[in-house]
């Protein structure tokens, strides 16, 4: 069976854990040390889902902040994306809302899964359901994750693949 390539992106503010999520998903690894992403980091993982052999090409985009912007060109061709926020910093949800709008303008209504990361620090969370309401309504699904413990990480990517497949793209 031919392996189907699917491009997905990880998008969010700086330091929300995009690289850690990708690293956990692709290599089952987590590092406590924080190294900021420059530009984009591309990883791949092969999996079988929805009865198909898939190759996820994961574009881990650098965080959006005053020092770097998400490049719209990097979103081209993406079948879906994880929109990542940090549960301990409410401001990252505002950034997520801005990015969701920008993705929609750049590539149209591509499905996304809203990921609220750092669930292992739930005691310090600043985010509640009311804060995520608008983004949740537009998302295919919402999930709390912890890249540190691995909780919810595979599920997040699986949900995204399901969202992409559910859209019945012609190439799948």
């Amino acid at each position: 069976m031919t392996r189907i390539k699917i491009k997905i992106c990880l998008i969010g503010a700086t330091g929300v854990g995009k690289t850690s999520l990708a690293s956990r998903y692709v290599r089952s690894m987590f590092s406590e040390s924080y190294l900021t992403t420059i530009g984009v980091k591309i990883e791949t993982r092969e999996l079988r889902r929805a009865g198909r052999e898939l190759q996820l090409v994961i574009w881990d985009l650098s965080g959006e902040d005053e020092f770097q912007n998400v490049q719209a060109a990097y979103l081209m061709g993406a079948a879906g994306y994880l929109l990542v926020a940090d549960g301990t910093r409410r401001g990252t949800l505002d950034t997520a809302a801005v990015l969701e709008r920008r993705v929609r303008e750049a590539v149209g209504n591509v499905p996304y899964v809203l990921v609220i990361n750092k669930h292992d620090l739930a005691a310090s969370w600043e985010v509640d359901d009311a804060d995520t309401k608008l983004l949740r309504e537009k998302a295919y699904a919402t999930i709390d994750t912890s890249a540190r413990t691995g909780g919810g990480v595979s599920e997040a990517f699986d949900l995204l693949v399901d969202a992409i497949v559910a859209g019945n793209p012609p190439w799948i």
Partner: protein
Amino acid sequence: MDLSSAIAAVGAVMLEHLPDGRFQRQSKAPRWWQGPIEAAEDAERSLDLRDVLPFVDVFLPDAEQAWAGSGAPVASEIWTQSSGGGSEIHLQAFAMRVGASAALVIVQNDFVFAERQLLLQRARELRFTYDALMREIERKDILLHTIVHDLTAPLHSIVGALSLLRELPLPENGAHWAQVAVDAATRQRALVRDILDVFLAEQGDSETLESEGVDLATAITRAIAEREPVARQRQVQLVSEVNEAYLVVADEVRLIRVLTNLLDNALKHGPPGTPVRLVATAEEACVRLCVEDDGPGVATDVLPRLFQKLVREPRGGGSGLGLYFCRITLEQWGGSIGYEPRATGGASFWIRMRRVTHGVATTTR
């Protein structure tokens, strides 16, 4: 000279863009190319580059412009490609015309990546630290404000109840002790007010300056009216010699607070039977207002720190915040405050405030 080997030695690979969209390698394979990427080449060393280096897909539009145009090199952003086993390579692509050929050079650029990452990392860490500190400061400020504000409420009841108690028939010395309690509660209330004043002044951002200016003479009249009962009690006369209408840059409520602070100081030190005078002098773009008393003047050892936080005169009492509040408030309005001993004895505290003329605040320089 083996240019092909030289290119590979610096971690670069040169490819030619073919008419069918594939790329053909024209130089030796650098180390990072060896392995899965090289394995994707066919017998003619050509491959669909996007299969092994997905980033090329986003760079291709820019590359095609470079190949179609003057041929001046176009560079991509640096990107990171994960290879098997968890290692990463940092690459950058350059598209250019070389003769009639459309060339793509991909370089492993770890040095530039590391430099850029170091700078960005440091900048972001500083931003994180700054944001965390600001959140912490905000939490503490709110807590302080809440606590201090809540301390005031019972004091109103205490002062009120004690004042009523004074009016009742009391046993011997009862009136005296009731007065002592009223005075203590009143001082406590003043202290809490000073702390809140300073807190609000340090925040600075909730104030709305009067765009038309504040009438200094009116503010003085109101401040004197507030302090008249205390002045009468101490047998000190409050005299304003400000008869002209000076419009100054200020917020009226806080200006009255500044003036009452200065009056409180003067009343505290002015001997009974002497006046406290307020005298204003117009300067080119400012008004200088002096609050003068006939007291002993400020002790010389206190002078260097007089307008700093928590500076108390040995004989004065008080919170040590009043003059600090005056200073930061006036400075926020572009003004200043100072002290000078009077030649005839006593103290003269002056404040300088920017004037508003024709609805426009003047600058001091």
